[in-house]
């Protein structure tokens, strides 16, 4: 690390700007992708939080949503002397042997957003993706009064988050609102597919009254554009209104909520992800340990077979609380 003073936060991305001789050792971090708004915000927060928390952060690597690259990056980071690894494996099955290797080298791992199925982790920092789906389902179910048709614009089925959200939404609708028909559209996290599928489905069933989008970053603009073309962007009081629940909590979604174009979003806390990932990484480097139970930041640590998980809160944002400055989406510019 360099000997830069720690007072000024250095959001420039110069991650070596960490306090001199920090306790514990270097933290290697891998970013999962650079092509989604949510993860870009997370990537932005990381160096900022590292400076605040005084973490000796190595230059971040990026695995571009490819687990093989993640493995290679991890090897490089440990080769360069990382004592703790923070990663966000978008594919949780294929990371198992890497986790085993790291365990063998006594390098603790903090995973963000996803929970590896196998292999030891020091701490999983994530919000409950199943809860996203359930929250969206409950919101839509109530607004529609338990009947009608809704569309679920799903992420990729090969991603755990896409599957969790889809299953939770589907299951909740079946249990709590059996009167609602759900159309599932596999969009592969692609805006163009989302637009085409939604457009076709609206042609087929003009009486669709609700939409749940798995990712505001890719689904928001296309959905609004399709609804606009159909003249369906109308106030909630209007019987033609289509209720739209998004997922992510990026500023554009808040803007849309304020304008009444969509009705709600689940705010996935990018800032907290970054903050607590580094918090636990630092703790791991310093050799601290944690126990299951409530934390000091409105969350609960639960025990997993292969480690611990800190389940961060993921608030549902509606017109009522959209201006809450505590939401990360209101802090980024």
């Amino acid at each position, binding site marked *: 690390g360099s000997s830069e003073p720690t007072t000024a936060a250095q959001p420039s991305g110069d991650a070596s700007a960490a306090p001199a001789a920090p306790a514990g050792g270097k933290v290697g971090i891998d970013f999962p992708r650079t092509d*989604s*708004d949510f993860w870009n915000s997370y990537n932005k927060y990381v160096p900022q939080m590292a400076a605040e928390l005084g973490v000796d952060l190595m230059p971040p690597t990026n695995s571009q949503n490819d687990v093989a690259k993640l493995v290679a990056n991890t090897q490089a980071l440990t080769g360069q002397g990382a004592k703790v690894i923070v990663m966000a494996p978008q594919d949780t099955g294929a990371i198992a042997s890497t986790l085993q290797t790291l365990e063998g080298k006594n390098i603790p791992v903090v995973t963000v957003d996803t929970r590896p199925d196998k292999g030891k982790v020091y701490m999983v920092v994530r919000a409950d993706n199943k809860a996203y789906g359930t929250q969206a389902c409950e919101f839509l179910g109530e607004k529609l009064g338990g009947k009608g048709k809704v569309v679920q614009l799903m992420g990729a089925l090969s991603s755990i988050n896409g599957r969790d959200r889809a299953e939770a939404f589907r299951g909740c609708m079946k249990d709590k609102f059996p009167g609602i028909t759900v159309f599932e559209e596999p969009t592969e996290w692609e805006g163009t597919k989302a637009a*085409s599928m939604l457009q076709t489905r609206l042609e087929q069933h003009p009486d669709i009254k609700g939409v749940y989008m798995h990712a505001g970053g890719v689904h928001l*603009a*296309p959905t609004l554009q399709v609804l606009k073309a159909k003249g369906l962007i109308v106030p909630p009081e209007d019987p033609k209104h289509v209720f739209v629940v998004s997922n992510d909590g990026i500023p554009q979604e808040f803007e849309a909520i304020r304008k009444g174009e969509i009705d709600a979003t689940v705010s996935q806390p990018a800032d907290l992800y970054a903050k607590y990932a580094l918090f636990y990484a630092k703790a791991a480097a310093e050799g601290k340990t944690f126990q299951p139970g409530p934390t000091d930041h409105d969350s609960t640590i639960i025990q997993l077979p292969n480690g611990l998980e800190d389940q961060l809160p993921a608030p549902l944002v509606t017109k009522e609380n959209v201006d809450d400055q505590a939401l990360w989406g209101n802090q980024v510019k």
Partner: protein
Amino acid sequence: MTTTKTPPPVLAAPQGRRIQLGRFRDLTLVPVIVVLLIAGSFVDPIFLTPGNLTNVLQQQSALALVVLAEALILIAGKFDLSLESTVGMAPAVGVMLVIPVAAGGFGLELPGILAIPLCLLVGGLVGAFNGFLILRFQLSAFIVTLAMMIVVHGLQLGLTQGKSLFELPESFLYLGSANWLGLPAAIWITGVLFAVAIVALGYFRGGRSLYAIGGNADAARAAGIRVERVVWVVFVIGGIVAALAGVLETGRLGGISANQGVGWIFMAFAAAVIGGVSMDGGKGTILGALTGVLVIGLVENILTLKGVPGEWKQLVYGSIILVALMISRLAGGKAQD
């Protein structure tokens, strides 16, 4: 040697039939389209309504333009994989030159009306650079444009920091979202460009020279065609058309995501090749490529209407393409290449 002049006998029968079919070779997908239209009407009564068919056309219009660009380049005997990246990058850069920093722009804030021309210019420049590398350095088109595909998309990622651009000038969204005479403007634009290309490649020397170059570049050169210049122009046109595809797509989606266009090139090749355009150059027509796009669009639409479960969708989709291929092969009667 004798001077008796017996005229050589006329051609044998087998060749005769070939010629006639050859003329319709670009339409071998028509039976496939008919089958799809019939199948679709069984899947859902909504399928054959004008509204739904219009949607299919609109959804495919941007891809269709990329197919058009790729078909031109393939006919001239080259390749361009970077078109898909241009679909995202050109609009992103065009827009970033006009929007304020707060919205993700460069801070130049040029007049909004310039966004589309700038976008097309960027597309043309990418094409020109591809052509330059391929022709001046005599590099393989496949590999240059593969690298450029990564570079161009990388440029978009870098410049936008991977963010989507949402706050676009109205003028930029207009083409992709407006309706003219009851049909989406995108359909009109795509239709007109296809018509222009069909006429140019069918009835004008410049267009015909693409076939000559793709068929035998040395022979074309010997016939006085300026092979390098024509190929270069084709790359530039390809880039511009891909950028226009990006404009239409942006208008349809209302924003430019970091992944706009990613993965399209495979679909574009599939459409062009099942439509009869040869990867070896010199063969195929723009009309054929258009039928290829339609097949792909109809298959997607039917699968969506049918609500095939997500995890089986790809399998069904790929299988239908394979069957379409065989039908078109049997209808065309000629080996593909």
